[in-house]
């Protein structure tokens, strides 16, 4: 009957019908879910087997999805049950979905192989608590992230967020100490607040526009109080889950107390899940809204996170807590993407590339650093920074990984972190938003400080006795991830073009 209605129909036809390769999206989700069922029913060693056997397939599916997206040059879509939105649920993979799917598959695979020793089921025992929990929850995190990266329906994404919570919380307290139980409970309560706040926003979106499909909503939303309230509630919930300053307090104890393989996934991937949805909300659902003020607020919170997180990281006595606070700081950088990629300017594309590069570089570098910290703690029997003297000579590969990861966190060339921060600086200068250069540079300096704090004592003279020398294969897994973080610094222009596939601003939507 009116313009909106007509445009809605058109989009339904374009973004609501299955495209070639769309079926891969369903398979990518169902693979880890089937793995969970096959892990849980017979139990025992099967959980480990199901995870290890499914990871190569998951990686192959992610690559195939990326291939299809690249070939089509536009998002690939699958309408579940053959029912297009608004009544049915659609899955969509665009450039950033495909890249995140590959990153998740790589890091989950790395975590799975890294964890094989610690979470092996010993001979003679049918099943252990920690092994079954770890393998099932690792697959659940993978499944949830896959849905989050390709989900096209806000309520479906809510269920995915809940799966992510239910999977992540038990990993935090898998060792059962009171300290970790408290950290897990705190994490759970924050996450539940986040989900319910998100869900309230979903209810308002449905009440205002009668659909929860992202591309249909993008066509229908107007700057009404209902939409603003819904967006604010969803953002607040997602920020609590992403641990953006000032709701970051749950993260350090949770991430620092989990076993290293879990910490790597939690810090590298899980917080990126809710951040990814924040991007989806503002850049895909609400690109038509004048969001300068909101973008500035998010940018300020991000800047505060960079400064506060880095300073607190500098003061930590334990290596894993230092790395966890560094995550708080690096999450802050992610939120600079909101002021730097807003609108349809020449510099927005630079800001967008910078944000995605920061997501990827941090994911790989931080996972590698947590892996290394775990190896170090196992080898030395502690992770007190003050007692690291001489450790670098005893564990050269581990410290090489930490140093290379640190390079990326600081933003020194050549590394993914450097590219991200360099592009952020370019975007803030090109957009005339000079102020954002201050937190970017200050954060780099502070990161240099906390990385130096780890490396300086380790490189100094001292005697260390290794309780248990780390396995070479584990060190290589960590080194491989950090190498990816460095290699991202050499990403060619085609990679950034790929990230733009399906980006509404680039596609010329209002």
């Amino acid at each position, binding site marked *: 009957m009116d313009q909106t209605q007509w445009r809605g129909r058109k989009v339904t036809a374009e973004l609501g019908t299955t495209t070639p390769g769309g079926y891969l999206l369903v398979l990518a989700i169902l693979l880890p879910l089937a793995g969970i069922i096959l892990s849980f029913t017979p139990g025992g060693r099967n959980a480990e087997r199901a995870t290890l056997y499914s990871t190569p397939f998951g990686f192959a599916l992610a690559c195939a999805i990326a291939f299809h997206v690249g070939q089509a040059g536009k998002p690939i879509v699958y309408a579940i049950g053959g029912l297009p939105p608004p009544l049915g649920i659609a899955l969509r993979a665009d450039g950033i979905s495909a890249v995140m799917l590959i990153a998740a598959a790589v890091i989950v695979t790395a975590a799975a192989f890294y964890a094989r020793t610690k979470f092996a089921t010993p001979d003679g025992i049918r099943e252990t608590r920690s092994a079954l929990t770890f393998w099932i929850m690792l697959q659940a995190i993978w499944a949830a992230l896959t849905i989050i990266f390709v989900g096209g329906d806000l309520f479906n994404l809510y269920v995915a967020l809940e799966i992510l919570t239910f999977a992540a919380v038990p990993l935090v307290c898998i060792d059962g100490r009171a300290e970790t139980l408290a950290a897990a409970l705190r994490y759970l309560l924050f996450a539940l607040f986040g989900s319910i706040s998100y869900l309230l926003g979903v*209810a308002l979106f449905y009440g205002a526009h009668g659909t929860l499909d992202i591309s249909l909503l993008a066509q229908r939303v107007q700057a009404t109080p209902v939409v603003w309230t819904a967006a604010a509630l969803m953002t607040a919930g997602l920020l609590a889950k992403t641990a953006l300053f000032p709701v970051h307090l749950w993260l350090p104890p949770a991430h620092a107390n989990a076993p290293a393989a879990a910490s790597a996934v939690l810090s590298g991937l899980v917080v990126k899940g809710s951040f990814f949805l924040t991007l989806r909300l503002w850049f895909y659902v609400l690109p038509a809204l004048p969001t300068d003020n909101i973008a500035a607020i998010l940018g300020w919170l991000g800047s505060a996170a960079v400064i506060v997180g880095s300073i607190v990281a500098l003061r930590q006595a334990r290596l894993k807590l230092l790395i966890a606070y560094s995550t708080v700081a690096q999450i802050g950088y992610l939120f600079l993407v909101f002021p730097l990629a807003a609108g349809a300017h020449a510099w927005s594309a630079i800001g967008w590339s910078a944000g995605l590069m920061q997501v990827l570089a941090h994911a790989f570098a931080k996972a590698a650093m947590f892996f290394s910290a775990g190896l170090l703690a196992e080898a030395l029997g502690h992770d007190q920074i003050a007692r690291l003297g001489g450790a670098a000579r005893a564990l050269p590969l581990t410290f090489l990984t930490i140093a290379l990861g640190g390079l990326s966190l600081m933003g020194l060339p050549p590394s993914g972190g450097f590219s991200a921060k360099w592009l952020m600086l370019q975007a803030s200068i090109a957009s005339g938003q000079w102020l954002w250069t201050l937190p970017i540079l200050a954060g780099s300096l502070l990161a240099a400080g906390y990385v130096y704090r780890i490396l300086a004592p380790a490189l100094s003279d001292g005697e260390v006795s290794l309780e248990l020398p780390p396995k070479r294969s584990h060190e290589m897994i960590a080194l491989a991830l950090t190498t990816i973080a460095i290699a991202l610094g050499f990403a060619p222009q085609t990679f950034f073009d790929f990230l733009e596939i399906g980006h509404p601003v680039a596609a010329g939507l209002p």
Partner: protein
Amino acid sequence: MTPSVLAGLVGATLVGLGLYGLILHPHPLRKLLAFNLMGSGVFLVFGIVARRGAAAGFRFDPVPQAMVITGIVVAFAASALAVALILRLSEESSRVTLDPEAWTKPNGGDAK
């Protein structure tokens, strides 16, 4: 005032009450109750959205109602996980507290 408007206002009140309890109560079980209260407020908002959407011979829009049913089951599962954590925490420690300072202050402890 129609029942749906009334229910909407009740829902808004419940969300506010739940938020207040969630932030303020120190005890985690009280926080969990507050979360559930807030959750039921959110479900009521879905309820009025469904009631307003009566059309095509239906007295309600079935989509948001189905979402509430999914949501109630998920909220229950969350409560069960939280209760298990709270009970275990109370067995392991004399203080059921979420204050991170209580755990991380003295010399930090070791990583294992």
